[in-house]
């Protein structure tokens, strides 16, 4: 009887530990996956861009790193496709957003045809800058607790991924090879 109870308790203990271990491993793997996807997507887009709009310090010693970055979409490169779009990566809570937007003088801005989209720095006859409208805003990664960017041409992307129990830091650098 006692031995039977001990065996049942031991079996439950093993089950309990295995379930907790599975959950912890799963959570840890999920953090790594989110960090990997965030770095992969951001470095791919930065590598192709032709212009970075966000002012970034050369290194963390030269100024506060930025927590977001806006740059021209180099994959959908004008004039090949006739579309001039901009990508913004930013954090909203712990979600990493990738926003695609365009600039235009045409109103309403949202429905302006792609042929009217212009570079952000274009001025009209009255020396006004164009209006910006969002084309899409998608969450690309979750559990990103901090995002830091710095560098000139070679952009360092440093991020932390966190859950209730763990925080891990990841870093990579991406060369904006089309930046003049």
């Amino acid at each position, binding site marked *: 009887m006692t031995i039977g109870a001990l065996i049942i308790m031991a079996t439950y203990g093993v089950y309990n530990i295995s379930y907790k271990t599975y959950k912890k*491993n799963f959570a840890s793997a999920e953090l790594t996956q989110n960090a990997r996807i965030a770095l992969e997507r951001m470095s791919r887009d930065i590598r192709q861009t032709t212009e970075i709009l966000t002012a970034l310090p050369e290194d963390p010693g030269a100024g506060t790193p930025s927590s977001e970055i806006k740059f021209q979409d180099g994959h959908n490169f004008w004039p090949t496709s006739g579309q001039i779009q901009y990508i913004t990566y930013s954090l909203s809570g712990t979600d990493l957003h990738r926003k695609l937007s365009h600039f235009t003088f045409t109103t309403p801005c949202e429905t302006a045809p792609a042929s009217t989209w212009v570079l952000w720095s274009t001025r009209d006859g009255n020396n006004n800058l164009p209006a910006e409208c969002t084309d899409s805003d998608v969450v690309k990664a979750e559990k990103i607790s901090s995002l830091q960017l710095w560098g000139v041409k070679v952009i360092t992307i440093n991020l932390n991924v966190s859950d209730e129990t763990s925080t891990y830091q990841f870093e990579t650098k991406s060369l904006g090879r089309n930046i003049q």
Partner: protein
Amino acid sequence: MKILFVKRAFTPTPKVLVRGFTIIEVLIAIFILEIGILGVASFFTTGFKITKTAREETIASNLAAGLLDEEVVNSFDNIPVAIGSREKYSIDASSPFYNYEKKIDISYIDANLADSVAATEMKKIVVTIYWINSGNEKSFQTATVKARH
């Protein structure tokens, strides 16, 4: 009236001897069971190690890709051909990358992508990241080619 009791002959029912387990047998059984349970428990530590290794390899591959881009940004003539030395990725002991080491090897390569002693128009950049995982050294290597434009 006299009641007569008939005395029956006593015939004992045959005893079936059920032999129990000795304490030694029980201890041996528990010992074997424990070995089984501990065997299952060892899977968990293996699972943790695999997850940790995957995370470290992701960190190492991203560091290596960054170092590669840092070399590629230089012009062809400003990339010195040399066997690199192993250095700390970060000299800051509080950095999470302090335990990672880097090595950058740059060599000339010929049209068949084979190493060349003579100067050519292409350089191969090989970045290796080293780190210690559970007492064993692990490494991640990535490479690219830079051509003279």
